[in-house]
């Protein structure tokens, strides 16, 4: 196989990123609409998408602020939702750690679910790619994804005010989150984490400042990690 050029890995990235347009457009549109419903103006809504560029965290912060949660709690909860970005960052480091600081900073800003998911698969499949080829692929995936994220947040913010009451948009956020969570429940450990999280969030809902969510989140993480250890041990026992 001929060694691909930087140009060709870029376009390969664009092709791999293109199907995500179907996810990005409705999701960012929804954020624009829900944010407008919550009383944010166009500048505030767009700033959210440009600065944070992470759907789930944006929705989390917005929901908690709408609920009247203290600023600190809204911030911590949204950052907790984004902790997976640190995992992505850790996992990309061996592949693009050799790039310049500026390039790494730019790649970090554009590290989203889609760019990470595509890149990690291709980087593992093509160990011969150079660092510039990997970066070109990464930014190729970003090209059809992130600009549309900004654009359709803007469109959602502009049309948001004209959405009629009867659409029951109060429930758009729970449905979107449930649809995102369900496919993540791949293993018994993920299921256990989610189950503990739901149970504790309901039990501790009486706690002020949405602290119940922090209790549920921490306990859920510990449950997931612990279940993984127990299952791995059981598998080893079976194999030996």
């Amino acid at each position: 196989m001929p060694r691909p050029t930087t140009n060709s890995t870029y376009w390969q990235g664009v092709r791999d990123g293109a199907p995500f347009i179907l996810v990005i457009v409705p999701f960012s549109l929804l954020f624009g609409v829900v944010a407008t419903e919550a009383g944010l103006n166009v500048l505030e809504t767009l700033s959210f998408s440009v600065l944070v560029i992470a759907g789930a965290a944006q929705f989390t912060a917005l929901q908690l602020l709408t609920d009247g949660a203290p600023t600190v709690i809204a911030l911590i909860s949204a950052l907790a939702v984004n902790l997976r970005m640190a995992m992505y960052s850790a996992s990309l480091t061996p592949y693009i750690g050799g790039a310049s600081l500026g390039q790494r900073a730019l790649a970090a800003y554009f590290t989203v679910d889609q760019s990470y998911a595509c890149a990690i698969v291709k980087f593992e499949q093509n160990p011969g790619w150079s660092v510039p080829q990997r970066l070109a692929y990464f930014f190729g995936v970003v090209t059809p994804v992130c600009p549309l994220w900004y654009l359709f947040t803007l469109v959602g913010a502009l049309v948001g005010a004209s959405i009629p009451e009867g659409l029951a948009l109060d429930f758009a956020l729970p449905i979107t989150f449930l649809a995102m969570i369900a496919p993540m429940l791949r293993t018994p450990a993920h299921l256990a984490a989610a189950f503990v999280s739901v149970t504790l969030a309901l039990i501790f809902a009486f706690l002020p400042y949405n602290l119940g969510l922090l209790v549920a989140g921490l306990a859920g993480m510990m449950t997931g990690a612990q279940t993984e250890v127990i299952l791995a041990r059981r598998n080893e026992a079976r194999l030996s």
Partner: protein
Amino acid sequence: MIDKTSLWIVIILLGLGSFGLRFVFTGLVGDRPLPPWLLRHLRYTAVAVLPGLVAPLVVWPAATGGALDAPRMIAALVTLAAGYFLRNVILAIVLGALTLYGGLAVFG
């Protein structure tokens, strides 16, 4: 109504914090390996935080003043089942929304 000051504080700090999370390893830690126990916990952050966020919204919806609501509860269960079995986020959203509107038409 959301207070404008806390809104901008959250937007800016969440932006900086999210960038920090994305940059921490790529930029700062480099190639040093992470302790396995930390990675193991990080793997479950999304499934531990998001379900806990949604559960009270489903059980005590704000739109009904916190009373359990059949159309919303059924829509939530359909969305969850569709997402779990079909593994398709957009399809699950569409089916959940259709269920909600169907339910609101029937029960409402």
